[in-house]
């Protein structure tokens, strides 16, 4: 019976959220995904009714800035985390003396186990200010003012923002990608690798031409799995992103917000809406988050499965 608990919990979660969100989904419509202003309306003013659903006059919800912030910060995290994770997996399986590999393995385990509120605290008090004072200004001042690179120019803020969030998110998904990749590497048969070496290939050539192609789909799957984790991370991002509403950052250092952080920072004021509409809208936002994460995870697992290897458990610790 107990094997059914996850299935039941999953169904109930989706049902409760969908039930709560349904009136908001009807009223907010497709505008919710593309609109860029999050207006709770005046909760002390008149109540208006749209399609039988009461909400404060002037309320209108668009979650695009939060969605864009989620995509940007998660993409950054992936860009930073994947090369490091693959390098670390190489280091673990082939490259390092045993004692050093053991240290790395422990570090990955600790990284997976450190509560996100602690990573947030470190990001907000230590990493963010350091980067903002000593690193970001140098980068910003030396970037050419041409398309793409201009995204790295401009005011560098005081440490809260997109890049800091991306870096801390990357630390959170490295354990997932690295441990899955390591498991995959360990499953590459020794024969082709030894064959490559016998042909005089260097370690890099064996890695690039034999090991990585052998498990490429698995790495992509693990990356997508990490993406799902980055989408859903809440507390750390709420502490280091600036958790803004209605703002898409003009450069890579700027403050912004994500879907998950919006859920935790806006829930309180949502309760002040006597019509209950803002809470319903936040439930809608949670539905969006859950649906996207479910799609991403399913895709990841299909990719990983197809290669015939089992993915490491999320969190990558075991």
């Amino acid at each position: 019976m107990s094997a059914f608990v996850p299935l039941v919990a999953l169904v109930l979660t989706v049902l409760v959220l969908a039930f709560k969100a349904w009136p908001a989904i009807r009223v907010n419509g497709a505008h919710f995904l593309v609109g860029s202003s999050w207006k709770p309306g005046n909760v002390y003013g008149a109540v208006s009714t749209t399609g039988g659903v009461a909400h404060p006059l002037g309320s209108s919800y668009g979650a695009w800035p939060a969605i864009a912030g989620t995509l940007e910060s998660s993409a950054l995290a992936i860009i930073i985390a994947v090369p490091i994770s693959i390098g670390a997996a190489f280091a673990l399986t082939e490259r390092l003396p045993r004692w050093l590999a053991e240290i790395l393995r422990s570090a990955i385990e600790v990284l997976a186990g450190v509560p996100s509120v602690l990573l947030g605290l470190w990001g907000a008090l230590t990493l963010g200010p350091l980067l903002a004072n000593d690193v970001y200004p140098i980068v910003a001042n030396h970037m050419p003012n041409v398309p793409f690179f201009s995204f790295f120019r401009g005011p560098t803020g005081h440490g809260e923002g997109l890049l800091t969030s991306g870096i801390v998110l990357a630390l959170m998904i490295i354990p997932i990608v690295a441990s899955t990749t390591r498991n995959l590497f360990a499953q590459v048969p020794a024969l082709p690798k030894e064959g490559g070496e016998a042909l005089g290939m260097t370690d890099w050539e064996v890695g690039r031409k034999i090991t990585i192609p052998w498990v490429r789909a698995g790495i992509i799957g693990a990356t997508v799995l990490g993406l799902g984790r980055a989408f859903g991370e809440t507390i750390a991002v709420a502490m280091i992103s600036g958790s803004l509403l209605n703002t898409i950052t003009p450069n890579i250092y700027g403050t912004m917000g994500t879907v998950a952080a919006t859920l935790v920072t806006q829930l309180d004021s949502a309760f002040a809406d006597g019509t209950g509409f803002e809470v319903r809208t936040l439930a809608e936002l949670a539905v969006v988050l859950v649906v996207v994460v479910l799609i991403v995870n399913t895709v990841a697992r299909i990719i990983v499965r197809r290669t015939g290897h089992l993915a490491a458990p999320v969190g990558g610790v075991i």
Partner: protein
Amino acid sequence: MIRPTRPARIVVALSAVFAVGLGSSLVAATAASAKAKPKKVSTAIEKPGAATVTETGSTLLYPLWNIWVPAYTQKYPSVSITTNGTGSGTGIADATNGTIDIGSSDAYLPPATVQATPTLENIPLAISVQVIAYNLPGVTAHLNLSGKVLSSIYQGKITRWNDPAIAAANPNVTLPATPIVALHRSDGSGDTFIFTQYLSDSDKNGWGKSVGYGTSVQWPTTPGGLGENGNGGMVTGCKATVGCIAYVGISYLSQLLGDGLFYAALQNGKGQYELPSSAAVAAEAKFFLKKTPADGTISLIDGPVKGGYPIINYEYAIVNTQQSSASTAKAMRSLLEWAVNPKFGNSSQYLSQVSFQPLPKKLLTNSLKQIHKIS
């Protein structure tokens, strides 16, 4: 018992809102408070039996609750009280749905909430103040700022500290050309509610029409403008940003000064610039006392009063007057009676620790009447 009062309460609540929005008198509200019968209200504190009382809500009131509770339970050990600072919205919602017994809030109940649950009431417990802080190295004076200037700053129309509009109000201060970075709360909050009310009231045709007020509003884009999470985030962010301006609850005053920030004198409804001194807060409170309706639903913003500081607010306890347990109801009454009593909870011994001001004596009667309704 409940039915007849319901429409009246809504009228009061709505009229208070409109009156503040239009910035003029509160006729309906005054009428409502005048109707209350002049009956002597007992200030005695009931002796509760064994009971558990839960409180959650405003992060501004949370430190005060934590000062109050040990003192109260020392006297009445049979009551066990838990407090939590989750934010005013949660305080309102959880008192409404019965998750907790006492919610606390920086803002009064929205009319829609009262309409849905007419047995709710907001009981003024104390008076809080908002300060406008800024980070301008070299400027050690309290700058004079008006609602109009603040409105222009938060709309991105005034972008430098040496703008003529600011300079005109501060003739004796040498202002730098530092760009202004306007900070606002990114989480919904009672602080945003009263700050935007002040902007709406002093710039009726500008801010009042384009942005309005609420616990969270759609902030106009300003150069370098930043959102900050919580009062703590406002202070930390302002400390880190030269040229910043921020609105902060007064319980954060010591932190603010410790971080080298200064706070402004604000222009009140009579055109004077006033610092948030006890006297200025008391003057403002006194003016609004006459207008405060029996249910305490009113904003204390920008009153046309000599020597008044224009952004103050009541801190409320949100309670449902119909409690399922008689012993809990009694303990709630006892705790709240103790909290508003000037000899106990409302004495400066407790309030000064968070820079709050006590309730005026007349309002005490009002609050006690509300408290006695809990059963």
